[in-house]
């Protein structure tokens, strides 16, 4: 399926809004579709760079680079923190 589960999308939307207030069903569905577009958008940018550098695997750096190229510079610091955390978790998992 090319969409992410609407329940998960809805949960993130609700958390972003004040507790009072609802989200129309067609708005949830719209965000669900837009989110898949976003994934494809980032992937495409990252993939272009990979191809230019004749690499076959998209890596974390490519994603950070893509975010910068596409104007989402303010995401880079949070993403770097997430990546550090992710590497920690993987390291702990494999060494314990």
């Amino acid at each position, binding site marked *: 399926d090319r969409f992410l589960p609407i329940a998960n999308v809805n949960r993130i939307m609700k958390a972003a809004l004040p507790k009072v207030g609802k989200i129309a069903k067609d708005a949830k569905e719209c965000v669900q579709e837009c989110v898949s577009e976003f*994934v494809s958008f980032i992937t495409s940018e990252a993939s272009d760079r990979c191809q230019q550098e004749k690499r076959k695997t998209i890596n974390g750096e490519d994603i950070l680079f893509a975010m910068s190229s596409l104007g989402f510079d303010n995401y880079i610091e949070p993403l770097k923190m997430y990546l550090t955390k992710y590497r920690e978790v993987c390291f702990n998992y494999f060494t314990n």
Partner: protein
Amino acid sequence: MAGNEEVLDEEKQLNENANASIRLTKLPQTRVRNIIKLDHDVTLASSEAVYLITKTTELFVEYFTKEAHKRTVEYKRKTLQRKDLDDAIKTTDHFAFLEDIPLD
């Protein structure tokens, strides 16, 4: 050999436990990977790449929702509607990539 089978079972159990107890993302990474694979220019994406795309997508949902909600508030409504999202797409550079895609 019997020993090897035991090791494989244990490894499988460890993987299942890990997947159950470590939930690093609010959106399922496996589904995100499926969407990535739809791009035929992509050969492979590392697990770090899939993880970061998933996290950035979560941030995007939050951002998109909050931007749309500004319109909801502006029009003194309590319910976030499709038109609020459409308006955010038309007026925010970050969402320009969403223009002209056939939604529903």
